[in-house]
């Protein structure tokens, strides 16, 4: 087990409004979420001395403008002018989960006391994923000429392989979409709060990139979420009940850029990250009370459930049936609605929900007696990170 098990905790969490279009600059959303998280902790902004984020815009073919389409650490520093700031970082290889892990490491190293991590996501006007212009450079020279644009098609090809190799049926995915949308109705911050979804809606929805229909894809939105991390001792003196980090991991496998469609790369990415997390935390999949698994595209949940060890390869679409992922099921899943419910904010919201469930702060969607709370914070292939939060640090 990890020497640093449960030495760091998530304290406050914060949210901006989630909107469909970019009515106000993204920096304002990020500032709102950060303020909200700091207030939730019962801290003052001047107490914050660490900052971390992953400022990528996953849309292709759009300009990155700091404060408009991304919110970098520099942008946040300029807005907050923190008098006590001692540490900051932006990560590249592991999405927002990596930023959280770096904040954990900085707190363990004692180079800051209260770190804030945010994820701000922009929804550019026009088509989200644009193929390159007249020419395809770099890795895209082998994909774009054939009509491969954004990550959706790259994930769709692996999904057809999974479906046909295992003799599975995409209609079973309706259970995931419908159950998560039901969970969403307990999350007032979510884009689809107040909008139900039926099995019939799912089965009748238009195809985007087979096997993905519209409701297999998270909707692009504009918004931000944030968390405060601190040491366990300090967290116990703050307002909310802490969610202790029992262990974490990151994917240790990477594909050559432009090689798409490989199913094994999802599995190897996910299992390498989960293995570290199980070993460090001392838990195994059967100990988990509640799970959040990244669902930017629905098939990510399949790869997550299988590669993290919750079920065997080829079985995930059967595993999610028969009430197992309901709030009172054997493995309540994406209890905040997932990205399919909140809109595309990436995995920090999964981390937030994992922490809220562990500390008993999830309100009407709280899973009864939840203690061991698992999070897979992004698609296991490229940027996968995994976490276990607990409410009871022993």
């Amino acid at each position: 087990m990890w020497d640093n098990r449960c030495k760091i905790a998530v304290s406050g969490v914060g949210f901006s409004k989630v909107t469909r279009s970019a009515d106000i600059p993204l920096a304002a959303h990020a500032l709102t979420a950060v303020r909200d998280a700091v207030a939730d902790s019962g801290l003052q902004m001047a107490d914050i001395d660490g900052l971390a984020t992953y400022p990528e815009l996953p849309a292709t073919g759009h300009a990155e403008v700091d404060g408009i389409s991304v919110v970098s650490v520099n942008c946040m520093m300029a807005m907050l002018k923190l008098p006590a700031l001692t540490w900051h970082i932006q990560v590249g290889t592991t999405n927002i989960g990596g930023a959280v892990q770096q904040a954990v490491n900085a707190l363990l190293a004692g180079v800051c006391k209260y770190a804030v991590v945010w994820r701000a996501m922009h929804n550019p006007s026009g088509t989200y994923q644009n193929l390159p212009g007249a020419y395809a450079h770099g890795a895209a020279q082998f994909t774009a000429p054939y009509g491969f644009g954004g990550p959706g098609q790259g994930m769709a090809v692996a999904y057809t392989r999974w479906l046909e190799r295992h003799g599975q049926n995409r209609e079973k995915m309706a259970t995931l979409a419908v159950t998560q949308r039901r969970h969403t109705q307990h999350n007032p911050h979510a884009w689809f709060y107040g909008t139900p979804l039926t099995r019939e809606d799912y089965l009748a929805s238009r195809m985007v990139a087979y096997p993905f229909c519209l409701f297999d894809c998270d909707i692009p939105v504009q918004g931000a979420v944030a968390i405060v991390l601190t040491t366990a001792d300090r967290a116990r003196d703050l307002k909310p009940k802490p969610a202790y980090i029992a262990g974490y991991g990151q994917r240790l496998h990477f594909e050559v850029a432009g090689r798409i469609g490989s199913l094994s790369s999802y599995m190897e990415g996910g299992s390498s990250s989960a293995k570290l997390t199980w070993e460090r935390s001392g838990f195994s999949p059967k100990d988990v009370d509640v799970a959040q698994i990244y669902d930017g595209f629905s098939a990510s949940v399949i790869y997550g459930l299988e590669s993290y060890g919750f079920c065997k390869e080829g079985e995930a679409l059967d595993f999610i049936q028969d009430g197992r992922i309901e709030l009172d099921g054997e493995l309540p899943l994406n209890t905040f609605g997932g990205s399919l419910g909140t809109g595309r904010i990436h995995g920090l919201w999964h981390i937030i929900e994992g922490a809220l469930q562990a500390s008993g702060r999830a309100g009407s969607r709280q899973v009864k007696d939840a203690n061991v709370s698992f999070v897979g914070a992004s698609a296991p292939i490229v940027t996968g990170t995994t976490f276990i939060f607990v409410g009871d640090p022993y």
Partner: protein
Amino acid sequence: MSDWSKVTRPIPVPNEWTRPFWDAAKNHRLELQRCQNCRSFQHPPYATCVQCMAIDLKFEPVSGTGTIYAYTIMYHTGDKRFASAVPYASIIVELDEAPGALLAANLLDAPYTEAKVGRRVEVTFEKLNDDITLPQFRLAG
């Protein structure tokens, strides 16, 4: 069957790693990067052998037959240049001689419903301009 006649594809821009691939394709030959140490093929081209870390890599011809490893049927018309071909099959091909090297392509000369994992395919070539010819695939005869 998808109508590709009105589609304007993005033109690949060869670089120092990939130029031999495109030079071969222009002459209707499929050549993949091969490690001269462990003899494994790989695609897309890379700086080193991803199997054994050797740096001695050369492009060598392959016969161009293989199977559909995976596919997707594209319905979304976000990119207007491809809208006239929708729905179309974008496939990932694993060549018989190069297991693990995955090539993207479209399934040509067949209805998109013919795209299935494991189906046999063979290479064909689609000229984009005087410099660039795309390797493509059709069902094996």
